[in-house]
């Protein structure tokens, strides 16, 4: 079934297809229409779910945690300040090994108030133990929502799927809605092995002595390792069933390319057209789309980028005092390669606070990359009013 949906509606419809059982959510621009759509879906009886209309994002996540612990599949969505407010409970969900799925609409942090996109909100939650997937289109948002449950429940870790404010959240696209029967086949009902069960009582989350805490963290690391495989499998299975797949990374026109632009989110779509133009003009430049931040697909990235001449990472975020987060991540995984296989990696800060990342900016980056001195790897602020 084809429908014209916004990115936010796509997330809501994804949760519907996945048969989320408990929704616990709080509105925030630009996420609000996700939960409005879900409220509508639940009200119309299209989804048999309990919608807890909580009073804060903190409680939204607490609600997901509680319901998930009771054995229900849960969904929530938030953005920016809301995600920051949840921070404590992001850790909680992950350490409690609860496969909660959440959509986060990337929005810049205040103050001053900004409702427009950048990735600082979600990247700041990098270390909470959540899987993170950055989406490029409304179809990908919907499909990733369904896949997220498949992966989360396979490894018992929560998953955050991320979409850009307005560029996706409020932009309509034609979206294919997978059939309910096929979706149910792809994603069977949630059946946790251990949960709040009066017939098999356990106490969850008691004090852990020093001599055993590390082992639980180690098990989470192992689960993240598993998630690398689970994510690929979930995508492969999805493709086999629905004819669409995305990969945790995507190579776009990279064959033989000396120069690589690395993107995430909606910047990717714009970059695709710029790459097309530049290749037509004879530039040896291709695109690496990063979809998954956690677990970081280190092997894949190393394989793709080794031996290239130069790499430009387009960071729609800034870890002030250091630089763009994606570039740090990529540099750190590339460090293991022999020096002759290791291209210089340049960090381009773009589109903070929702500023348009235009084809002109991206072309500027590609051209800059070709001529920038090797040693000058400092961050480059694109479009900065100097």
């Amino acid at each position, binding site marked *: 079934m084809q429908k014209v949906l916004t990115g936010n509606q796509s997330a809501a419809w994804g949760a519907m297809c996945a048969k989320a*059982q*408990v929704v*616990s959510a709080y509105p925030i621009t630009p996420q609000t229409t996700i939960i409005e759509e879900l409220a509508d879906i639940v009200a119309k009886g299209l989804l*048999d*779910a*309990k919608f*807890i*209309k*909580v*009073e*804060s994002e*903190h*409680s939204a996540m*607490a*609600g*997901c*945690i*509680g*319901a*998930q*612990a*009771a*054995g*229900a599949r*849960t969904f929530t969505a938030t953005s920016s300040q809301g995600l920051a407010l949840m921070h*404590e*409970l992001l850790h*909680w969900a992950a350490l409690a090994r609860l496969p909660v799925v959440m959509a986060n609409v990337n929005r810049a942090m205040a103050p001053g108030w900004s409702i427009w996109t950048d990735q600082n909100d979600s990247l700041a939650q990098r270390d909470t133990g959540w899987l993170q997937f950055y989406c490029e289109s409304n179809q990908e948002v919907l499909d990733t929502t369904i896949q997220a449950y498949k992966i989360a429940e396979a490894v018992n870790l929560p998953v955050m799927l991320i979409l850009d404010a307005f560029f996706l959240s409020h932009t309509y696209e034609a979206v294919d809605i997978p059939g309910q029967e096929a979706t149910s086949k792809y994603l069977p009902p949630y059946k946790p092995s251990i949960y*709040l*069960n*009066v017939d098999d*009582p*356990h*106490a*969850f*989350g*008691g*004090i*852990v*002595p020093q001599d*055993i805490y590390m082992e639980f963290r180690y098990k989470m690391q192992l689960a993240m390792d598993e998630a690398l495989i689970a994510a690929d499998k979930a995508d492969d299975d999805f493709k086999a069933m629905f004819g669409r797949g995305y990969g945790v990374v995507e190579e776009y026109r990279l064959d033989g390319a000396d120069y690589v632009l690395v993107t995430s989110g909606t910047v990717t779509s714009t970059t695709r057209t710029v790459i097309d133009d530049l290749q037509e003009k004879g530039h040896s430049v291709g695109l690496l789309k990063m979809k998954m931040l956690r677990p970081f697909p280190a092997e894949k990235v190393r394989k793709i980028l080794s031996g290239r001449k130069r790499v430009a990472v387009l960071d729609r975020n800034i870890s002030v005092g250091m630089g763009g987060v994606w570039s740090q991540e990529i540099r750190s995984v590339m460090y293991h390669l022999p020096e002759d296989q290791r291209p210089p990696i340049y960090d381009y800060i773009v589109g903070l606070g929702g500023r348009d990342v235009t084809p002109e900016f991206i072309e500027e980056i590609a051209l800059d990359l070709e001529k920038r001195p090797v040693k000058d790897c400092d961050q480059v602020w694109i479009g900065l009013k100097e």
Partner: protein
Amino acid sequence: MRALPHLKQFTEVAEQEIMHSGHVACPGCGAAIAMRLALKTLGRRTIIVFPACCWAVIDGPFPYSACSVPVFQVAFETASISAGAIRAGLDITGKKDINVVAWAGDGGTFDIGFGQLSACAERNDNIIYVCYDNEAYMNTGIQRSSATPWGSWTTTTPGTDFKKERKKNLLEIMAAHRIPYAATTTVAYPDDLIRKFRKAMSIDGFKLIHIFSPCPPGHKALEKDSILESRYAVESRVFPLYEVEHGTHYKLSMDPPQRPVRDYLALQGRFKHLTDEQRDFIQKSTDEEWARLMHFMKVSEAVE
């Protein structure tokens, strides 16, 4: 060795023992008594939610638990929503006849979890919210909370800087939410406590039970005096036992002969610095609060 039906025997206490020995509550802990009696009443089809509070520790370190019902430990401020969400999860997965109980201290209730508590009450989530109130942050070592009474010493209200603010009136706040059921009780009166839990179990929607829970180290009282202190709290009217149905109908649970507040204060080292005038002040404000409560009772009767 003969059975004597003496005058004030507690007859409602169930045989089933759901709380295990070996928990790590301090000797004489009121909250441990409260839990034991509550679990005896609630039974095994119960899920308990602990936010950060003494009971988060009392229950025992991994891999052990003092409660033979499912326990879910949650973040400090989230007892209410967690319980409400567990209920939602049970409902949607078709699990019936289970008591979902949030079991929080006064910190998690009066302070850090207060917003969530209010929201949960407003949503009328079908849970029993229990606040075992020991009138300070005891788990972190006796710091003042908004449940700490006027005049009390704590480690953050030391010396002459004893607490100069009054205790929040939780029941009035909760009554203002017009929840189906709110009640105060305390460990010295097991039958009252049990009856209120039973009542809460029989009602759909948000139920709040506020348990005054003596804390020997925090109140600087003798371990053996926990029940005495609890009883004096009621007799002195510092902690009256009553119920509020639907937020408007007040009902006094018992009205023992009034005991001077001084008797209650005298059991506790946390009040030992108070002068006679200050003790009189507490007596006066206790009397005023009582008069106000009696007014509510009267209004309730008139409405009936």
